[in-house]
């Protein structure tokens, strides 16, 4: 694997994470439990779509086949996606959506913090812009997880169920492979495994405040970051997301 091949994979991983999570969050539009949440969710989705444009834009550049961010977003099939499985699981109830957001935001904020010192200026610049947005996402999702975890009996139960369901999807964010080794060697991105300690501390702190119990298992579903085995959910998501581009190829919108 050449450095550019690894770099492309890394960029797709970053961009597909934000693309797919942004899509999932946008599904809530008009259906949130309270108006302020509708606005906040739309805002999160909007930030993630913006970040997608930057990551996938750079991915297209590095790939060098003349593909735009839109080409990459709308014209790849399931196996070409490189997002972690966590971001593609269905929204479930509002509690699961917010728990997923928190578990991702925590990783995302730590990752972007490291990427701000990337040896690649373009990566560093994207990270600098995105990390401000994500700091706000994390503050918000963390607060909501605490509020609902330490709310009523029902909200506590639902948040614990959400955590139990999502926890097996957390480990994949810290898996390392040859792409990561290459990126670490080039100083472009950190080894994901090196983020785990900080993550556990941060997530542990918030979930304790939320009176929630982290499941006692390190088992991790994998297969998204290398595309080997996504969940069945991603294919359904793409039928919607890519519909117009697939049905009317070559049109400009």
């Amino acid at each position: 694997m050449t450095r550019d091949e690894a770099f492309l994979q890394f960029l797709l991983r970053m961009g597909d994470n934000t693309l797919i999570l942004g899509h999932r969050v946008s599904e809530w539009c008009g259906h949130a439990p309270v108006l302020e949440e509708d606005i906040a969710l739309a805002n999160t989705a909007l930030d993630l779509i913006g970040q997608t444009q930057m990551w996938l834009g750079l991915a297209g550049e590095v790939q060098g086949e003349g593909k735009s961010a839109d080409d990459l977003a709308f014209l790849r099939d399931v196996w070409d996606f490189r997002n972690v499985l966590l971001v593609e699981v269905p929204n479930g109830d509002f509690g699961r959506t917010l728990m997923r957001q928190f578990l991702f935001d925590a990783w995302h904020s730590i990752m972007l913090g490291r990427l701000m010192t990337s040896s690649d200026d373009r990566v560093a610049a994207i990270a600098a812009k995105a990390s401000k947005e994500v700091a706000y996402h994390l503050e918000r999702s963390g607060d909501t997880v605490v509020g609902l975890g330490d709310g009523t009996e029902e909200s506590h139960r639902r948040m614990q169920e959400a955590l139990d369901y999502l926890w097996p999807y957390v480990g994949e964010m810290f898996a390392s492979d040859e792409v990561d080794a290459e990126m670490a060697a080039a100083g472009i991105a950190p080894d994901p495994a090196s983020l785990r300690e900080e993550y556990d501390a941060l997530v542990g702190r918030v979930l304790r405040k939320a009176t929630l119990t982290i499941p006692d298992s390190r088992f991790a579903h994998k297969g998204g970051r290398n595309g080997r085995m996504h969940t069945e959910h991603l294919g359904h998501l793409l039928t919607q997301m890519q519909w117009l581009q697939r049905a009317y190829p070559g049109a400009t919108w």
Partner: protein
Amino acid sequence: MTEQERAFQDKIDADIKIEPKDWMPDDYRATLIRQIGQHAHSEIVGQLPEGNWITRAPTLERKAILLAKVQDEAGHGLYLYCAAETLGVSRDEITEMLLDGRMKYSSIFNYPTLNWADIGAVGWLVDGAAIMNQVPLQRTSFGPYSRAMIRICKEESFHQRQGYDAIRKMAEGTPEQKKMAQDALNRLWYPSLMMFGPSDKDSVHSAQSMAWKIKINTNDELRQKFVDQTVPQAEYLGLTIPDPDLKWNEERGHYDFTDPDWSEFYDVVKGNGPCNVDRLAARNKAWDDGAWVRDGLLAHARKKAAAKVAAE
């Protein structure tokens, strides 16, 4: 008219804003609550037809624009609910009136969005008609409402330009895209004309509302203005207004046009629009499913407040 009423009307005539703590006639208050509430509900329900296409937006940029727009609409809802609250009705109270059908929202949102050009057409026509209604309301007599409208109008005219840009892309695109644009115009033209309400001669509340400066122009004036503005835009796009009798009237200095089918309008108001049932069901589901979230966050806020008191 009592002395109090006289003083109140004098303020309005002198273009002095009425503020929440000022005395006001019960009818003025009730009419405003109905009007502001209905407007707020329209913003909220109005998220649904556009939200219908967010997950199918054809490019990242279009998705971002659409998301931002729907987010703005939720924001408008928020301003307006706040304005209504200054009149003594809580957001939850009027929300429940929406959900059980006691209060209405703009009938235009009971029509479906069926192809991507509808998203452009909603911005162009529906927001266009809304602005036509709302711009004069910036001068309305009730202070909080007037200030909310000033903020809203600024954003709405931005949406309208974006909508026009989106449908222009379609009208100038492939034959299929152009067909979508024409189809959208065909379906949304008359419902947009209906947005101004029935002719004023058929409207019972108009005179009093105009005296109170809750309503500034007649429905027919605004409708004419909208047609006059929109026809040249459609021509520029190469689209055909679905009205064979539409033509410029040199003498009047306005377009003559066919009145919408008001029996359809009353049908939709009664609940028989294509989407009434689904729209209200969606809002009710969001509200019911979200009850545990609202309860949970409230319980947490109370615990925190209690802990703070105990610590002091």
